[in-house]
């Protein structure tokens, strides 16, 4: 993957991006997963089959685990929380992010949504992380409980694809 992307980036100068066209460039499913791998929060676009995303996010944890353990060996100091593309499927791309406390964020993006590049995904994860930190700061929130914060929910909604 890395190599392929690299190749594309070198020829980036010749790209003709078409801004402002197509559907809103957003995620179709966003999940927050506890250190112990149970979901703290998971939401997908209501039009889609929710179950499918649950399976997808759950399966993606395999790669998250793999990446975390690989990172544990190599990049302890680098503090790179973004795990990159976990795995692509025909229709979706699954991205991962892990906090220092090993809480995972997983975001599923429609494969046809080509406007979402690494940088956008990164910034979305950062937004998600900030909002999650706010949730954790709430003294009434018990770490490990399902997230029910409305503020967090609204933030996720803003990152999800708007269904017309």
């Amino acid at each position, binding site marked *: 993957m890395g190599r392929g992307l690299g190749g594309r980036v070198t020829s980036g100068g010749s790209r003709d991006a078409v801004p402002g066209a197509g559907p809103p460039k957003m995620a179709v499913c966003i999940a927050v997963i506890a250190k112990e791998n*149970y979901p703290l929060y998971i939401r997908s676009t209501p039009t889609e089959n929710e179950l499918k995303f649950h399976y997808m996010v759950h399966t993606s944890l395999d790669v998250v685990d793999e990446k975390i353990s690989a990172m544990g060996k190599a990049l302890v100091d680098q503090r790179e929380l973004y795990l990159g593309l976990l795995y692509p499927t025909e229709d979706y791309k699954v991205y991962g992010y892990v906090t220092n406390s090993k809480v995972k964020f997983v975001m599923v993006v429609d494969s046809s949504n080509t406007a979402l590049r690494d940088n956008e995904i990164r910034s979305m994860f950062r937004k998600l992380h900030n909002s999650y930190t706010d949730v954790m700061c709430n003294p009434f929130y018990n770490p490990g409980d399902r997230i029910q914060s409305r503020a967090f929910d609204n933030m996720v909604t803003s990152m999800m694809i708007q269904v017309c």
Partner: protein
Amino acid sequence: MDASEEPLPPVIYTMENKPIVTCAGDQNLFTSVYPTLSQQLPREPMEWRRSYGRAPKMIHLESNFVQFKEELLPKEGNKALLTFPFLHIYWTECCDTEVYKATVKDDLTKWQNVLKAHSSVDWLIVIVENDAKKKNKTNILPRTSIVDKIRNDFCNKQSDRCVVLSDPLKDSSRTQESWNAFLTKLRTLLLMSFTKNLGKFEDDMRTLREKRTEPGWSFCEYFMVQEELAFVFEMLQQFEDALVQYDELDALFSQYVVNFGAGDGANWLTFFCQPVKSWNGLILRKPIDMEKRESIQRREATLLDLRSYLFSRQCTLLLFLQRPWEVAQRALELLHNCVQELKLLEVSVPPGALDCWVFLSCLEVLQRIEGCCDRAQIDSNIAHTVGLWSYATEKLKSLGYLCGLVSEKGPNSEDLNRTVDLLAGLGAERPETANTAQSPYKKLKEALSSVEAFEKHYLDLSHATIEMYTSIGRIRSAKFVGKDLAEFYMRKKAPQKAEIYLQGALKNYLAEGWALPITHTRKQLAECQKHLGQIENYLQTSSLLASDYHLTEEERKHFCQEILDFASQPSDSPGHKIVLPMHSFAQLRDLHFDPSNAVVHVGGVLCVEITMYSQMPVPVHVEQIVVNVHFSIEKNSYRKTAEWLTKHKTSNGIINFPPETAPFPVSQNSLPALELYEMFERSPSDNSLNTTGIICRNVHMLLRRQESSSSLEMPSGVALEEGAHVLRCSHVTLEPGANQITFRTQAKEPGTYTLRQLCASVGSVWFVLPHIYPIVQYDVYSQEPQLHVEPLADSLLAGIPQKVKFTVTTGHYTIKNGDSLQLSNAEAMLILCQAESRAVVYSNTREQSSEAALRIQSSDKVTSISLPVAPAYHVIEFELEVLSLPSAPALGGESDMLGMAEPHRKHKDKQRTGRCMVTTDHKVSIDCPWSIYSTVIALTFSVPFRTTHTLLSSGTRKYVQVCVQNLSELDFQLSDSYLVDTGDSTDLQLVPLNTQSQQPIYSKQSVFFVWELKWTEEPPPSLHCRFSVGFSPASEEQLSISLKPYTYEFKVENFFTLYNVKAEIFPPSGMEYCRTGSLCSLEVLITRLSDLLEVDKDEALTESDEHFSTKLMYEVVDNSSNWAVCGKSCGVISMPVAARATHRVHMEVMPLFAGYLPLPDVRLFKYLPHHSAHSSQLDADSWIENDSLSVDKHGDDQPDSSSLKSRGSVHSACSSEHKGLPMPRLQALPAGQVFNSSSGTQVLVIPSQDDHVLEVSVT
């Protein structure tokens, strides 16, 4: 390669491509050096410096040497690079000027002109010098001249374009040197040519690319141009650079597709949007798929063709670069991307066609990778390839479903038609795989050919994928593929094979708490279990699903109905139970007992109310709900006593149960912490450290298998307990949500009952909660009847009526009509019978149950209290008034007979505080109807008063003062005070000086009474008196009984005054007043007031000539340090025992302060010689003299005999004269015998005149 013979070689796109170098001139000569040349050229690398800042590279050069022909030179606009001659070499051996002039020069000129015509500047002239030839011809010019000539003629300013190769075929150092120089030149020139020509090519290419927005620009054309560059890099073995060319093409194309999708269509792209007609997959076995390349060249390629070709080239290059895993990764990306692009471009694709294409491609990539890696490499890189395996499996599965190969019946005609169409799209197998048995093509064709073959291939793939996922630890992915497999088995009606996969997946989801996948998998599992006929498992899964909120109401009802249907079926074997865990059916929320402390007496009724939260979507009729109870006889019987019962009242008695199924799985945190210890192992001989390390002591806890702990789905763990004790509730309908169920039981045996299991039976289905936790217990107790008697107030007061509370705890005894308490009367304590006294009967829970009048019958010895009828485990309470007859505590053990009960004096307490009341204990023995033994009860009464008496004197007149101190908290009214002489001395009169007959005495206060003693004859030496005063509580209006007065007896001795002491202080003569610091005279006058009396007869009395005298010692003491006594302060005098006998003593004292000073004390002691015979010999004065120093020290307020004795002993220690002699003794005169007539008088002392400081002492 024989360049001389070969015609223009066709361009073959293989790895064999090398840069073309043309050879002109002497072909034979070239042929002779060619082997050496082709061998030597690539031997050493050369650094290639690149344009555009690209990094320089070391490059091994090879060349394809061909004979020079004009046609080889590219015409203007020809973009072919592979056929481009990068260098032109002219070979000559000429060493003869004639020959040169005749032929070679012309030939060279012609060659040069052709090159110039094509503006090719990359040429070289090689002159081979041969020594052998030189020797043969004598008239030859020196070699250099030919070289010079050629240089002169052709190499205009480019002398380096002409080189000499000396004796190339010889083996000499000169030859070697010459070759090296030549090869270096050749390489340099070649690279120069590359740089120049490739740079130009790249510039042209870029120009072409910039025109891509112009209409008529063709991607295919551009593709061919850039690929040419890639080929050249590949030819130069610069695979990385070659790959970049393809990646750029890839990215360019992708961007076009994206833009097209965004509505910005490029015309040329519509070529690629042709409907997909062929889906024969990637071809990676040939370096270049000419067929596809040509179709691109012809602009006939479809999107899949272009993508396939592009990828096959990338694949080839990546494999050259030893990066097979990137191939796998890129392949997956490509396949996904192609599917997306076809969708985006809305290319029409027959159903299943893409699946075929993807399937074939996956297998092709995998086989290609397998072909170039060994097994170990593959095994260690499964993570890279498993995605392809999984993708292929997925695609084969969907093909199977599409072609009707998964159904039970097999494909129908429509399915078959579809299959035929799909196979047609595959075309014929390509020749390169035709001989491979396991080629993707053959596999797909076979798999689609029959149901059996499909199954075989699908299972193979699935198993391989699962195995691979498992081997690299991607358990979740493995389970997910397993679920697909289970679905397949279910379709194939093989639920027994599906079950294991579903269970495995479910366990995984449960362990990680993923609700939706759990529900979904459970639904599948339920179906599977139903097919398998696993009734118990099916029912359990159904109950879990019926309570699952992620399902729709209808689905939940369906599963609930499944349970109810089964339950209502008549069972084949009656009594057969299906035992299921309860938590999915209903949950125990809370429980509470009535009585709330969960303690009940034998025979009592206990209610247990539980709240069960039914998880079922519909009301369920439950035949019975049973709680199994474990009975144990508890050793600690305290819990069962009435005290416990009354003291331990829980606030509300509700026990809450935590929700049983936690929403989250058991977190990893619950693992115990690592217990690490240092470990040292020392050598036994010299104690040097052999090994050291850290060991983990709880490894067995930490490394336990995780799965084994979470067997949530296994119903086998639930065992039904059969116990003798059960709480039962029949025919209950559990509504969805909370239900209240009440169990009622009558307590039987005493002991502790622990609630163990909760079972609900619906037909033959039993839902069992195997353990009720937290532990719930109730206690049944049996209690002996008890009687308690306690005062109502803090303490009972003697002398007045006091209330005492009787409490009868019936325990297991039932009070019958006629049962009574028999109180044996204590003499000094009366039980006062009141008509209106009532008894109240309370139940065990302190609720009043009845009230009855109390019948009390008293006889001399016994008081009988008849108890009201009361059932067992009740409490009867009533109050009685008792009166302790007052008794006075007499002094000094003289009047024991007064306390008729048992006056019990606490001497120590009395002495210590002086405030404590004297107490009296009365013991009452009570006979209870339930026991043959008597109960003895001690009641302690306190005497409210303390009385003291004092003898007061005024000269010879005597008074008795009695002080009554009220120690209690109550106020009393005192009346009728009397003081009588019990000694019956008739001439003695006690005249009361008290005016009031009634007098209140308040709490903690005192009242004084005074009587004057009068007598006519000689008074008796001692006087026995009894003081009595009536008292009643001041607050109470009327008392039903008359109270006994309070009495106090005492004895007064030696009350008759014998001596009068008078002291006077006179100022120094000539002075009007005493002054501080000046000596004054103290005159003490001791007068005997009576003649010889009975009391005088003691040792000190001496008789001589009918005259009696006694020895007295006086002492002047000033305790307030107002006076300094000068000289002797004490002395012994002999006092005649006769009335009016007077003794006068003079002393000198000095006032120390000014003001009215009280006189110093004068004390009188009786001076008793140890033996009266020797006492006269003693010189008392001399003895006193010795003691003068000790006088000032002698400052005790009350010099009692003991301190005087000690003084005597001090004296005996320091006086050697009297050593061994018995000492005289001093005895204080009783207070009544000495009257100090000057006590209280004061003397005015004025300050001395020369004092500058006035000291005023205020006393």
